């Protein structure tokens, strides 16, 4: 059984150069690029017009963005290795987090918004308390020292997963701050990690071109998803947990059915590498879930499922 998606709208030249990252909330899609501005796009309208700009101080560019709707916060990570946190309400800067000894790379808020976690290029993972005035550091996890390229929090808040440049893939318990699993399956860089919505499965992908999926409790690899011909740059589960969205350097997006453990749709609208793709957050709205992708072609592309016969 295959699914059909089509692109409903696109904004070409959304940024003057590569769009490295996209994050979605129920109101916005947020994109970042090689300059210091974050752009916020209307997720609800048909045109998905730009509604806000946040001018950050990341003069060298921004490569990762994450957001938490409950908190009304966006965190942006720049090539300068610093994290800046912004309020969605008034676009003011809430905090700037930096460590002269290392550079942060990927960041993620916990589902309840209590914590912000980020990987560093020295392999470590740092956790901050968002409730405290200036984002107090409340935890540090160590790994073998290879740059952390990807991070995710499980929705139940119990786990953090990180993917690393040397193929390292780890699941930590947030309660005990201990390493639960060191997952095999990758010897090359892991660029994306994503927990399923019920926190039961973890998907990981990177330079091996294959997506590996694990049982979070046992650490067992339960299946693989092959089909991409180049590096996997991003992974995201839809809110029912039935489908996984992957974006790849091979210029395509793929939607995978978890039940059938196979690819049910491939989107090749882009003529250049996809850097990131996320499902839109439509839970609680009347809108059907779709997804949005960004990459080298500087275009923000929105997709929806084709309904009907």
């Amino acid at each position, binding site marked *: 059984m295959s699914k059909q998606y089509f692109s409903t709208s696109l904004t070409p030249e959304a940024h003057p150069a590569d769009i490295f990252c996209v994050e979605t909330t129920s109101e916005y899609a947020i994109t970042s690029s090689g300059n210091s501005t974050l752009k916020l796009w209307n997720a609800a309208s048909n045109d998905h017009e730009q509604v806000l700009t946040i001018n950050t101080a990341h003069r060298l*560019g921004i490569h990762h963005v994450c957001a938490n709707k409950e908190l009304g916060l966006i965190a942006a990570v720049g090539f300068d290795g610093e994290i800046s946190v912004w309020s969605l309400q008034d676009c003011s800067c809430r905090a700037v987090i930096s460590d002269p000894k290392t550079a942060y790379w990927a960041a993620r808020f916990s589902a309840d918004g209590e914590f912000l976690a980020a990987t560093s290029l020295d392999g470590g993972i740092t956790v901050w308390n968002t409730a405290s005035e200036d984002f107090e550091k409340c935890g540090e996890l160590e790994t073998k020292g290879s740059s952390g390229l990807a991070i995710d929090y499980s929705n139940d808040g119990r786990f953090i997963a990180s993917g690393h440049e040397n193929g390292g893939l780890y699941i930590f318990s947030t309660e005990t701050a201990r390493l639960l699993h060191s997952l095999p399956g990758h010897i090359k860089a892991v660029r994306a990690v994503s927990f399923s919505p019920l926190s039961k499965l973890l998907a990981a992908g990177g330079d091996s071109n294959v997506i590996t999926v694990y049982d979070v409790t046992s650490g067992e690899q339960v299946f693989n998803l092959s089909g991409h011909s180049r590096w996997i740059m991003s992974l995201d589960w839809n809110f029912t947990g039935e489908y996984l969205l992957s974006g790849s350097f091979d210029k395509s997006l793929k939607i995978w059915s978890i039940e059938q453990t196979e690819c049910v749709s491939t989107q090749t609208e882009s003529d250049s590498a996809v850097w990131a793709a996320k499902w839109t957050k439509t839970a609680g709205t009347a809108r059907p879930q779709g997804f949005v992708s960004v990459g080298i072609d500087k275009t923000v592309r929105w997709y929806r499922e084709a309904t009907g016969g």
Partner: protein
Amino acid sequence: MSFTQGDDVIEECLDYRSEESREEILGKIETLISDLMAGVAETGLAAIRLSNRRAAESIRFDKEKLHLTARDAADTKQNIIAFPGPTILNSWRFAVLMRTLDIISESLTSGKVVTKRDIYYRETWLFRNQAIVDRIVDDIGRTLNVPRAALGIVAAQKGLACGTFCMHKKDGTLMAVEGEIQLIPPFEEIKSVDVMDIDFVLVIEKEAIFRSLCSSKFYNRADIGRSILVTGKGYPDLSTRQFISNIAACHPDTPLFGAVDSDPYGIDILCTYKFGSRAMAHENSHLTALKMEWVGVNVLEYEDGWTKLSVGDRKKALKMLSLPWMETEAAMAMRLELQRMLFLGKKAEMNVVGTEANSVITYLTQAIKIRLDALITH
């Protein structure tokens, strides 16, 4: 000196150097020494103020010309070198400065040119390493406000060129380059460069690839035309930069391309040709070729063969992204390239683009052809 169109453009282009004669420069050095002696008589201390060329305070970014340039003499950071100094290091610095001034005076008086290497080898025990000589010579040039060439010091030749063109030397000889690889002579020796109707100039970072291109006669092709190929063997020395800057200025309609490895150092080499360097900020206007176009290789265009970006590579890339010209339109492609390298954590050497042997030649042919075609349809 601004480059203008005209019949005497070649002469004008080459004669940027100091208007001051040897006598005048010798006079400046003598003044420096006599001031020093006067100081000794007064205070018992021999001291010279030497410009520090590389200090951040001495350099500013020229937003129009898009290169680093030296601040006025009054604003340049100066170090005082004195004898006797508070430490042995100070006394040594003084000795280095004096001996160098001595050798420079000698060469100016005799009319014989020396290379920085020659100077170093005169007193290796004193100078300790080549870098010390390199720095003091350029600092003296800045202090006296003359280009290094006017001090009678020429660079040892490093750059290579190939293709069909000729150079008229100041000593009256004609150096014809006919498909044979030639060392680029010190710029001071060149009267004019005659490029004879070529379609483009290509500068290549690595010598091995340059030689490969030469032996396959890349400079004379049916599909992309005739060209001059140049390599600076990595970071270009002054003579190579002057050579390229001069061709760019005197032949504004001839496309100038640069091909470097897909790593931060390759991009830095390209930027050195294009925007100049910190060390030579005071001479940059005659050393840059802003119109040089980066033609590759793009880090995304490989099939395989990437290596991991090292910690040092990352530092270099970040440092480069912070340079003033990186936010300008002219540097857009290079900025993006550095960001992509950082994003992927990858770099690659030009020679592994493509899977067959000599794929790099195919790659460069394509890259140049696209650009030449675009110019025609313009």
